[in-house]
């Protein structure tokens, strides 16, 4: 057998790639059920953290079912899309990507904590090195922030990655998204600076680009829910 022959080399490479592809496809098929379940549990944990509850993966499903009473899609006018209700991972609210332009609407979760309703809004944006995301829980008045949760794919440890810490997230509690009847979001500013006419929190020193990313994410992602929040605010 001549190992230097071009025909042999091409045949060898082709067969190897087919075998490897089959093997990997089989592995993925066999494990994808468990993987999806993990992703869903992780999402539930994030939603619960935005409600200021840090629970383990084992407890997440139970606490989520207890607290999250309803979930649905809303249209750009802030009205509920008919037939989109449901809180399980198979329902549209849970499975819709908020950045998907072709989706039927934007997902909102309704949780009841200690007798009062909180609205949870998913957020997506970009940091310095990659995507950042989060969940914001808002009181029934559509303006006061009850809690915030942030996640990131690969921000700098000790700098941008600090957005996930309770001390950064805690700053958002009690801030107002709506000022004088218009949606203004909450600004993330350099320590010591202020933002005129809007509520603000201190950014991460040394993590300027990530902080700006959080600022833009709040403005853009939560901004899409402007009409929904204004409707809630007006109903008060």
């Amino acid at each position, binding site marked *: *057998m001549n*190992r*230097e*022959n071009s025909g*042999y*080399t091409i045949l*060898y*490479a082709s067969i*190897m*790639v087919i075998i*490897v592809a089959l*093997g*990997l496809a089989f*592995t*993925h098929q066999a*494990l994808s059920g*468990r*993987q999806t379940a*993990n*992703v869903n*549990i*992780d999402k539930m944990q994030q939603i619960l953290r935005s409600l200021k509850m840090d629970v383990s*993966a084992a407890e997440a499903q139970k606490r989520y079912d207890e607290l999250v009473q309803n979930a649905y899609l809303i249209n750009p006018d802030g009205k509920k899309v008919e037939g989109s209700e449901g809180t399980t991972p198979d329902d549209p609210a849970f499975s819709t990507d908020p950045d998907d332009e072709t989706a039927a609407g934007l997902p909102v979760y309704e949780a009841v904590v200690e007798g009062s309703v909180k609205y949870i809004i998913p957020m997506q944006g970009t940091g310095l090195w990659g995507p950042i995301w989060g969940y914001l829980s808002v009181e029934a008045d559509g303006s006061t922030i009850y809690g915030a949760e942030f996640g990131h*794919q*690969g921000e700098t*440890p*000790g700098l941008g990655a600090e957005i996930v810490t309770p001390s950064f997230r805690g700053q958002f509690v009690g801030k107002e998204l709506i000022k004088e009847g218009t949606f203004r979001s909450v600004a993330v500013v350099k320590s010591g600076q202020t933002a005129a006419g809007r509520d603000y929190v201190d950014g991460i020193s040394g993590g300027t680009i990530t902080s700006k990313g959080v600022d833009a994410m709040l403005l853009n992602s939560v901004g899409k829910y402007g009409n929904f929040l204004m409707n809630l605010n007006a109903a008060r």
Partner: protein
Amino acid sequence: MALSAKTKAALLGPLNKNNPVIVQVLGICSALAVTSKLEPALVMAVAVTLVTAFGNVIISLLRKTIPTRIRIIVQLVVVAALVTIVSEVLKAFAYDVNKQLSVFVGLIVTNCILMGRLEAFALGNGPWPSFLDGIGNGLGYGWILVTVGFFRELLGSGKLLGHQVIPQCMYDAGYENNGLMMLAPMALILVAVIIWVHRARNKDLQEETN
């Protein structure tokens, strides 16, 4: 089970005088990145050990059939396939650890230790010695990672595997966690300290100085 001197050297050499990290200085990138806590360091050590061992066995079995012109590509495909399987298994059974390791599982593919062992050992030896060589090099890499991870988590956050081990009374008495330990440069300094201790005990590894 009696091991011949050669197989014994293949298994035990990398733990000490042939260590991939502290003697050959390979695999430093991941040693810096995943050692801020002990748990990801342990998982990374196990993952690299498995991939090196089975990559070595597969390449060793195929060594008489691999066309020389594409042997590096064949090695890469084998390693990449094994790493993808490890990554899929972690996603299914250890999701949190997978999130912490993030890109570094994928980067096992580019770990020089792997390609080095495949090229230098598996292509010229049978499956059993290759398997032992892979296990040995994986463990040699692993014990450095775990040692560095141990000190960084202990001194950096006062915890081990996420459990608080430094008692509250120490903090009350003015002890503070060393934030520098959590940053990547400290891993390099700890690796250097291990190299220092290791060379001090093994005079034959010391380079001649003029």
